[in-house]
């Protein structure tokens, strides 16, 4: 495997997907033989509310160039109310990240259902394009 350098840099995007909706949505992308960028690494979580905001900070520190949190649409949460907490949490988190100078495109939260393969593909494709345009994330990185 070739070492990643400035010249051949490719973004690393971490996507936290809830088991019940967004992960199935991502699965459906594959079942439908659709393509989405290889830059995305998916972490399956039981619920979008499982995503501790510290995970986002840590992801940026440890080398992610972008982070996506995806969960069921409001009203559809497998645990009834998890994503309502997610919504409050990340509305605030998003603003905090902007306040410390992380570009707003680098952190996204989206509601993606198990049937929305196209939405999953489009969301991550757009995210990767935006991040490619921004370049590597070095602000919260180790060894700066």
């Amino acid at each position, binding site marked *: 495997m070739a070492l990643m350098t400035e010249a051949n840099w490719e973004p690393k995007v971490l996507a936290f997907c809830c088991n019940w909706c967004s992960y199935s949505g991502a699965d459906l992308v594959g079942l439908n033989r659709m393509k989405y960028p290889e830059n995305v690494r998916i972490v399956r979580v039981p619920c979008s509310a499982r995503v501790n*905001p*510290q995970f986002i*900070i*840590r992801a940026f*520190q440890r080398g992610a160039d972008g982070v996506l949190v995806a969960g069921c649409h*409001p009203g559809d949460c497998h645990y009834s*109310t998890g994503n*309502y*907490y997610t*919504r*409050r*949490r*990340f*509305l*605030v*988190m*998003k*603003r*905090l990240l*902007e*306040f*410390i*100078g*992380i*570009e707003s495109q680098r952190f*996204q*939260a*989206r*509601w993606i259902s198990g049937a929305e393969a196209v939405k999953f593909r489009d969301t991550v494709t757009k995210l990767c394009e935006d991040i490619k345009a921004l370049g590597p994330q070095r*602000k*919260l*990185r*180790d*060894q*700066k």
Partner: protein
Amino acid sequence: MNAIQIKMREVAGQLLSLGEVDRVIGWEKGRFAHQSPPAFITDETKVERLIWDEYCLTGTAKYLLDDPYRAGKTGLFARGCDARAINRLIQDGQVKRENIVIIGICCTGMSDSVSRQMAAKCCDCTHPTPVVYDLMIGEPVKPVAKPERFKAVAELEQKAAQEKSEYWTRQFAKCIRCYACRNICPACNCRECFADQYRVGWLGKQHHTAENQVFGLTRAYHIADRCIECGECARVCPVGIPLMELNRKLIKDIQQLFGDYHAGVDSETAPPLGRYSLDDMEEFM
């Protein structure tokens, strides 16, 4: 001797001699004229140690947690900020109201021990009169709104991403990870803190800017909706990191997004991130 101090000693003496409490927490004179550290008094003959001057800066409430399983009641001298801290600890299930006798003091502000001007945390104080008390010393005043305390945050928000990042990197490069901000904070009341975990994944022990920032941001976010704005964290930080700017950014956004909320003013209303509303703003469609 000032009237508040006379009254403090009198009340403390009474509570201890009647056995209503078995210790009081207030302030005493330190080694230097500009130091008035907290005092812990268990003996009614020692109440003369208690003082009230313009350097009683330290919050008293957090000391209730030093021995969480202590039996017996504590008489706690509390200014506005301490009273909100007590509500914070009660609401977080850390102390029981019935174990504390709160002796409220109507505070008029303390002085910074270096500049001798009014301390920053007191300039921004909105609730100088205790919001919860059993006995009260002094003349109560109404809470003040002080929207100007968000000015620094609003100015920083306007800057470009690069500039903001440079600003916070510069600040956290100074952090020595002494955890004083956490130790003094009444909202940082978890018995097991993420910062103390030695297992991989929580927080690295290396001392460098990125790791310091992860610590600072995680702490700020963890207390986002529970910070009572006592300003103690910024006061004790030995390297002068403007921690209140992070806290106030979160408080400002939470107020704008989810409505007016002042942590610690009562111990009933749940903090905004621990509840939700079906009509919360939708940005994630």
